[in-house]
């Protein structure tokens, strides 16, 4: 497994990362509104990709039902705000606890009954679908008709209630990304990180060494779930509307893991790279095709075909992810560390 942590990246890598951060910090002052909204999507994908990465890349558990945690965070905070006026930052705590509990429940079921690999993935899908259908029929929070947060004056920035301009949300997403990246780096180089590495590489050997695999896997699951829920909160307050069919969908779960898988599972920068490849790819295709569609040409599906083919190509040619490949090309990786 190729792991890169910030402290160990040679000067070149660190420079690249800082350049990217600087570019992003300056972006709202330079780019048009549309590009800013695309960047926000990129940062959202990067963030949830990173939180998913904790469960998959660090603990080795494939979850295709991460939309469950996302949705729990989103609905919990939205409900508390709309019905009781409670700040979404507090709502994040509630959402995080809910999501972590759900994650703990699923994780415990999985481990207790020794479900792994694809079976575990299917279990996660089942729970997410469960949630989707239940929320669809939960009239108190809108049901399938959707739950809406009242949009106020967009120009007034109210950080405590997460009401404000897209620029405010951009910086929030950027901040979340930096925070989760820092957290992952710290965790990876800590004792916990090495236990995770051991469990991921050979669980039986790890157990033989006396490592409590159950405990550390559970930590990964709960952490991943809670952090994903935080992303859900931010998303809910940016979008101002929630529908179970799109919030808890399998499609959203796939969207969350696609970036990381393309970029490189288990790596710190994989989710970011993947997000920066995928989202602009989709948007560029939309923009390119738009003038043709204005002229009445029916081109439904063309964008998705290209998108799918690009993903297939990436998987075929760089199955370990784009970031490890890029890292080699840019001579950013540490010498001597071999990719598994």
């Amino acid at each position, binding site marked *: 497994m190729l792991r890169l942590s910030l402290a160990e990246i040679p000067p070149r890598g660190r420079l690249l990362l800082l350049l990217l951060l600087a570019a992003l910090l300056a972006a709202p002052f330079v780019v048009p509104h549309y590009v800013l909204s695309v960047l926000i999507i990129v940062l959202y994908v990067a963030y949830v990709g990173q939180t998913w990465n904790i469960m998959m890349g660090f603990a080795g558990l494939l979850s295709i039902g991460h939309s469950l945690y996302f949705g729990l965070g989103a609905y919990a905070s939205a409900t508390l705000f709309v019905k009781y006026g409670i700040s979404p930052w507090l709502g994040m705590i509630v959402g995080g606890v809910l999501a972590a509990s759900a994650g703990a429940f699923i994780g415990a079921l999985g481990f207790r009954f020794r479900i792994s690999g694809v079976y575990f993935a299917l279990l996660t899908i089942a729970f997410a679908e469960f949630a989707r259908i239940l929320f669809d029929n939960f009239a108190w929070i809108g049901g*399938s008709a959707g739950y809406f947060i009242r949009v106020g004056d*967009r120009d007034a920035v109210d950080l405590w209630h997460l009401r404000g301009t897209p620029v405010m949300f951009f910086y929030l997403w950027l901040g979340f990304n930096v925070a989760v990246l820092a957290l992952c780096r710290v965790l990876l180089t800590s004792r916990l990180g090495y236990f995770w590495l051991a469990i991921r590489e050979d669980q039986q050997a790890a157990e033989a060494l006396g490592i409590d695999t159950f405990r550390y896997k559970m930590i990964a699951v709960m952490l991943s779930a809670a952090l994903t829920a935080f992303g859900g909160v931010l998303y809910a307050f940016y*979008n101002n*509307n929630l529908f179970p069919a*799109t919030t808890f969908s399998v499609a959203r779960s796939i969207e969350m893991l696609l970036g990381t898988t393309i970029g490189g599972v288990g790596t710190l920068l994989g989710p970011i790279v993947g997000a920066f490849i995928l989202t602009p790819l989709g948007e560029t295709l939309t923009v390119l095709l738009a003038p043709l569609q204005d002229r009445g040409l029916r081109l439904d599906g063309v964008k998705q075909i290209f998108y799918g083919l690009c993903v297939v190509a990436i998987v075929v040619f760089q199955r370990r992810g784009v970031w490890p490949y890029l890292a080699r090309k840019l001579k950013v990786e540490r010498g001597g560390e071999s990719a598994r």
Partner: protein
Amino acid sequence: MAKLHRPLSRRVVLAGASAAVAAGIMPRRAHAALAPLKVGVIHPTSGFMAMIGQICNRGAVVAPAILKDLGYPDLEIVYGDTESNPDIARAAGERLIDGGAQILVGAFDSGQTTTLAQTAEQRKIPLMIDIAGAPQITEQGYQYVFRNFPRAPDIVGGALNVHKLVFAASGKTPSKVVCLYRNDTYGNAIKGALDAMVPKFDMPYKIVEFIAYDPQSRDLSVEVAKAKATDAEVVLAVSVANDAILLTREMVKQRWEPWGVLSAGPGWYDQSYRKALGKLGNYVISTVPWHDPRKKLTQLMLQALDKKYPGEAVDSSTAYVFEALLIVADAYKRAGSAAPQALVEALRATNIPASDSITIGNGKGIFFDAKGQVNGIPMAGVQNQDGLPKVVLPLASAEANLVFPVPGWQARV
């Protein structure tokens, strides 16, 4: 000193006066000075609502030319696609606004329109809702959102009145009705309105059961079996075309022949429904707002649509989109400027006489209340006959005779 001005002779005055009079009666192209208004028209043109979205857009295809001939300013239409998805509706709105759209029109589906309205309000760009029934959209205190379409309570109120007319005209009154409704924003809005209003309207029937079905469902046999088991005489449906097709087929296969299907929404009069089912799709009565074929502008619209899409019946989806563009053009003409604030004020002051509009309307004209809503829009009873939707109620506007109770399935095939 030379005389610079000739004293005004009678001839000059007369010439000047007649020139002024001539200018008054000539067709006013005075606003050719106004730049074309960029209008973003957003509907679900792909995804599961694609068919109806494309039919909505027909209104936008033919409207600009006709409106221009009548002296309204130029409209430059740019299209957005919601992909039948509320999240994408928001993105489509954002993209069009970033591309310079000065006003938005859309979006047919209540869920998609709600997110679009949020976007419009946030970006401070006016939204002219052509079609969407969920009441809460105009209850948010938005300043930039206007709607020329009835809300669910109005739709239900109108529908209940039409039901009474149906029973009176046919002499048959059911005591039990079962409601099959789509579990989405619009379906739930109608259900809520029915719950509130059926008792107040003193209806002769009781809704014995409300059966909600999953919008994504591909198999409605269980729902129809449940409905059949209630022994209701009449079905009250809230669907879109795909569900309507499934429900009808199931009713045929399960050999259930209620007195009729009354629909309080789209779908059952849609082209795709009529084409898919042929004779089996006849006799459904939809209580919907409809266009008035006697009005001048409506006739111009029908002619243009017939030329461009020959042989295709026109329904309210196209008509209301056209009317929305009429309102937009009218507001722009009065505002004289495409600035959002100017457009919004002009929209608030809208007062289009009933004779100049397209739809049946409230009879007094198109004007908005404080919440940006047009009120009092009545429902017509439209029945599919010979594969075409025909107005059968109110009797004063009827194009064909009401058939109720409807012939059984076997009798038609």
